[in-house]
């Protein structure tokens, strides 16, 4: 019996940000994300009381997808970070921390939301235009003719994910593998429009990280027995491949909406099998060497093909279909009848391979942009983390290919940017306030909140009680260990800045990050020699960081603009 149920009234709350509950939940979220940030970030163990495996991570994507937030404001915040991460892979924690900091700092000021939002937007566009300008002092061009900067970029990503549990040597090894995998996806003779290939990550858990490797082509996992049954092919020329997307199991295909009446004694199975064997004969006469099928191949057909020295592999699955099509240059066949000769493709060679306890059938391409990255790690959780990290790194490399610039990492970009904004709002407020009703004081207040939000982000890089300083020339970040003796001689304590571009041999002045210092002009235009000579830089992806910055400010503005929250309790 259906019953009409009266809807429960919604819960309506005004000025949600001022309530204690929201403040506490926001600060809890902030504590979680800040403690994860950076190479020395703390790991989080997430487990569900109802079962499932335990996830150990410090990455925003894994963290936020496992967290269950209930408050609508937090939902907005986490959703916007997750969306950012799913489009750019990197800089999720940066975005989250910056957004929380901005909300917290601005709330303390007690200015009207209109003013805050307007000025935040101005400051954001100031940052964006600076980071995109030629004079920007914290970005470097990426040279694709040498691997040095690309390696730095990948290494920075790997080191910032401590849950991968990599040693320095392993980090070097995996960085090199990732870069190789990426380079293999770039077509050799590309003119104009480049279509990148794909790196397939093949799991190999329980092995040493050092055993990870990159192979061109595709690995299809198989049991040892199956593999033994495959007869070795000895052929000097390329192998002819037929790739089927339709089932070869002998089901009668869909017969329409009406009814089909089968007379007694008529066996459709036999009829279809006849058809399949005919197909097999055509494949033989077309000199096909390898038959791959997304779905199931009828055992009789399989045996028939094997008898004629054709390798038949079925149940490939839909995920491998696209890379296979691309690699072999075939046209997936959807017909049991005549096959067009131009639907066949080719591979250079095939072989069997054994990695760890797993057996693979390896298709080696003639020239193709598909490669397999065999990724090893000791246990499941570390492997999951490493896989995510590799995907991030590959994505970042793709983004960098589109926009060949990298930002200085290790917090130097943030401190530099904060110094730039302080200087700009101090010396040239009119250009920012052009036609607005805001006053200069309001601008100073918001700019200070904005800069300290940026600086707090890098402040959370330090988890071991050390001090963070900034120099007064470049505006870079320098960190001092916690147990170092008291302020005696800075140059002795500080060896290198966060990104590794400068060392303390120069005559520099330092100040504590959160102390008030007079605004200064951070030196713009990086010296070219410095970039070339530096071999071990920490770098960030420009595209991801720019978007992260925008998303953080936009989301903060959105949350600050809320006047009511209406919760539907149905």
């Amino acid at each position: 019996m259906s019953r009409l149920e009266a809807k429960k009234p919604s819960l309506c709350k005004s000025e949600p940000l001022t309530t204690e509950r929201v403040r506490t939940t926001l600060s809890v979220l902030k504590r979680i994300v800040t403690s994860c940030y950076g190479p020395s970030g703390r790991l989080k163990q997430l487990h569900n009381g109802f079962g499932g495996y335990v996830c150990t991570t410090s990455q925003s994507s894994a963290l936020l997808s496992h967290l269950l937030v209930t408050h609508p404001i937090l939902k907005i915040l986490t959703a916007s970070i997750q969306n950012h991460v799913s489009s750019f892979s990197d800089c999720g924690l940066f975005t989250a921390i910056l957004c929380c900091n901005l909300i917290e700092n601005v709330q303390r000021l007690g200015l009207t939301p209109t003013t805050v939002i307007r000025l935040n937007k101005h400051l954001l566009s100031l940052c964006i235009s600076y980071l995109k300008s030629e004079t920007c002092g914290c970005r470097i061009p990426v040279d694709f003719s040498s691997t040095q900067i690309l390696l730095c970029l990948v290494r920075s990503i790997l080191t910032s994910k401590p849950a991968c549990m990599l040693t320095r040597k392993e980090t070097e090894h995996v960085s090199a593998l990732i870069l190789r995998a990426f380079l293999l996806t770039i077509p050799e003779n590309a003119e104009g429009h480049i279509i990148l290939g794909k790196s397939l990550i093949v799991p190999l858990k329980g092995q040493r990280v050092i055993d990870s490797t990159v192979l061109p082509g595709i690995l299809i996992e198989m049991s040892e027995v199956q593999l033994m049954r495959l007869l070795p092919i000895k052929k000097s020329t390329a192998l002819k491949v037929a790739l089927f997307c339709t089932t070869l199991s002998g089901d009668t295909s869909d017969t329409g909406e009406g009814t089909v009446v089968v007379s007694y004694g008529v066996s459709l199975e036999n009829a279809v099998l006849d058809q399949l064997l005919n197909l097999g004969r055509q494949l033989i006469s077309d000199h096909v060497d390898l038959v791959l099928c997304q779905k199931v191949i009828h055992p009789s057909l399989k045996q028939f093909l094997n008898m004629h020295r054709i390798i038949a592999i079925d149940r490939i699955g839909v995920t491998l279909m696209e890379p296979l099509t691309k690699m072999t240059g075939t046209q997936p066949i959807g017909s049991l009848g005549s096959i067009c000769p131009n639907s066949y493709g080719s591979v250079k060679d095939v072989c069997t391979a054994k990695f760890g306890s797993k057996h693979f059938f390896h298709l080696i391409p003639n020239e193709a942009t598909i490669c397999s990255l065999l990724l090893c790690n000791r246990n499941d959780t570390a492997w999951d983390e490493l896989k995510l990290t590799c995907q991030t790194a590959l994505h970042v490399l793709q983004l960098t290919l589109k926009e060949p610039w990298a930002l200085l990492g290790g917090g130097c970009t943030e401190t530099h940017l904060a110094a730039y904004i302080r200087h700009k709002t101090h010396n040239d407020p009119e250009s920012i306030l052009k036609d607005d009703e805001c006053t200069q004081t309001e601008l100073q207040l918001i700019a200070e909140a904005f800069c300290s939000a940026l600086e707090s982000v890098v402040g959370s890089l330090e988890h071991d009680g050390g001090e963070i300083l900034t120099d007064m020339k470049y505006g870079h970040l320098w960190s001092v260990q916690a147990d170092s003796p008291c302020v005696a001689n800075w140059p002795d304590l500080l060896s290198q800045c966060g990104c590794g571009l400068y060392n303390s041999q120069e005559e520099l002045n330092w100040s504590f990050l959160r102390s008030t210092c007079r605004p200064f002009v951070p030196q713009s235009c990086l010296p070219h020699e410095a970039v070339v000579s530096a071999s071990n830089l920490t770098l960030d992806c420009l595209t991801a960081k720019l978007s992260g910055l925008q998303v953080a400010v936009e989301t903060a503005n959105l949350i600050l603009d809320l006047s009511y929250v209406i919760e539907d309790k149905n």
Partner: protein
Amino acid sequence: MLSSMAAAGSVKAALQVAEVLEAIVSCCVGPEGRQVLCTKPTGEVLLSRNGGRLLEALHLEHPIARMIVDCVSSHLKKTVDGAKTFIIFLCHLLRGLHAITDREKDPLMCENIQTHGRHWKNCSRWKFISQALLTFQTQILDGIMDQYLSRHFLSIFSSAKERTLCRSSLELLLEAYFCGRVGRNNHKFISQLMCDYFFKCMTCKSGIGVFELVDDHFVELNVGVTGLPVSDSRIIAGLVLQKDFSVYRPADGDMRMVIVTETIQPLFSTSGSEFILNSEAQFQTSQFWIMEKTKAIMKHLHSQNVKLLISSVKQPDLVSYYAGVNGISVVECLSSEEVSLIRRIIGLSPFVPPQAFSQCEIPNTALVKFCKPLILRSKRYVHLGLISTCAFIPHSIVLCGPVHGLIEQHEDALHGALKMLRQLFKDLDLNYMTQTNDQNGTSSLFIYKNSGESYQAPDPGNGSIQRPYQDTVAENKDAWKKTQTYLKVHSNLVIPDVELETYIPYSTPTLTPTDTFQTVETLTCLSLERNRLTDYYEPLLKNNSTAYSTRGNRIEISYENLQVTNITRKGSMLPVSCKLPNMGTSQSYLSSSMPAGCVLPVGGNFEILLHYYLLNYAKKCHQSEETMVSMIIANALLGIPKVLYKSKTGKYSFPHTYIRAVHALQTNQPLVSSQTGLESVMGKYQLLTSVLQCLTKILTIDMVITVKRHPQKVHNQDSEDEL
């Protein structure tokens, strides 16, 4: 006991409810409005400033509140805009009414000790007021709109006849609309995006056909992409389908497409039929035939240069295979809306695989400029360059935003703007009645109107017209009393017109009235050309009323053009016999229309103007009820600009603005608005009538009875009646 379940339905109760709602909506009204976060029962989060959505999301329990929300949603069905203003206005009206009762409470208390009695007395009083409100809304409001307010209207069209949209006006209109609908960081960007979109999509200058198409297919014409900043939103030439190619073959040159709505591959049996298999060979031959047939169809399509197959159903593997072999890209599983949009754009009917094959040309193909995959944030879409056969040039909007809730808000706002523009293209009929109980009756409105027209005249002119006006009234009175012949009436009434004629050439070099009431010179809009029609005019008693109607015509037309006036004046000179009504009451129905595209500057201009003219009208009213109702409405109207100017200080604060506006109206100077932007008069007018209707509904309720029982399904009586 009944009293435990029943509560007196009173203005006070309604006011309390309305005030709660006002508190919520007033925080997101106007350019300074803020966002509201709503959660859906599914847990999704939605950002909104849309009044209608907010009221619905509240799921209110209070019966009066539910009634108000119902009224708002039925208003929104008509006009799509103004839910927030609705609540604010209603609240102020209720406040005004409540103030009256408060004033009268004390004497009542003394008279009636029994509270019940007082309640019933109040109720009957409310009923009177509600009737007065209804009378006002149906008979008086239109007249005030038509006769006083209309001279301030501007038009969105740069040419009224062809309804050519003026870009700068459209920009101002959209900007003002989005100010109230999206977050303040984004309203400029979104309104610019919308404006660009229209001008990119329109082939000719007038956009109504385009608006209709875009409105009907809005969902298909925009793509939401999360995870990118809002500023990445853009317009893409061509149509973007939210699907991926199931087969993609790059192609160029002469490309044609076909639409299919069923599988191309013939099936064994269609529904309702039976296929009898007698032998295995028969099965194999039929399969072979099916394969060959499919192959042949695809080959044939290929020979006709068809490079794209759009299908509303999933095609079998066989079709995809032969499409691929023949270099045909395939897009499958399109929704019926998407198919109908494509068909509407290119005017193509679906392709039906021919039964018997010939080498003839396939009739149902269309040329395509391009078809390629489009990647937006690592998701693939189909991007089609259709060649339009209608006024709409296909473009798609890509809306980006950090969260889905924000994109949804923007989509909602864009769709609302479309509906608002569609409304703007409609004419509005105004019907009103001039009713008089005493003798000078009909003339009062007209004559007053004449003096209204003289507003543009310099001071001496003004005076000269004011005087004859009074004379007329006096003489007219006599005329009615003595039941004079037509000549007398004529001579009386002609006086102001003669005055007008003498003054028109003097004050305006060109005779088009457009120049005389240009209100805001800074706006680039052209002032509205008036195309008022007076076509119905009838004394209550069926007199021979030719003289009246000519007179009515003349006055109306004389406004428009001097030449016509002369002619009609001649006409009125004709000896027409006229019997004057011998009863004291006379009613005259007038109807005219408000042309499409009427706009006013934002910032409470409409409200202040109507307030001003209503007060003037109230002064002339003779009935106390009418006066009171007009006063209450006039004062409540000011509530809206008060909210809008809440955060402004000094010169721009509400009192200053109001005084400036009234001063300008009194001295016939153009009104200057501190805000740029335009809003539709039509929407405002309909809002006003909806609120008044809602208020009458509230006032007629005397008691609310709570029933504690599960709601029962109401059978649809209407449908049974129809049977």
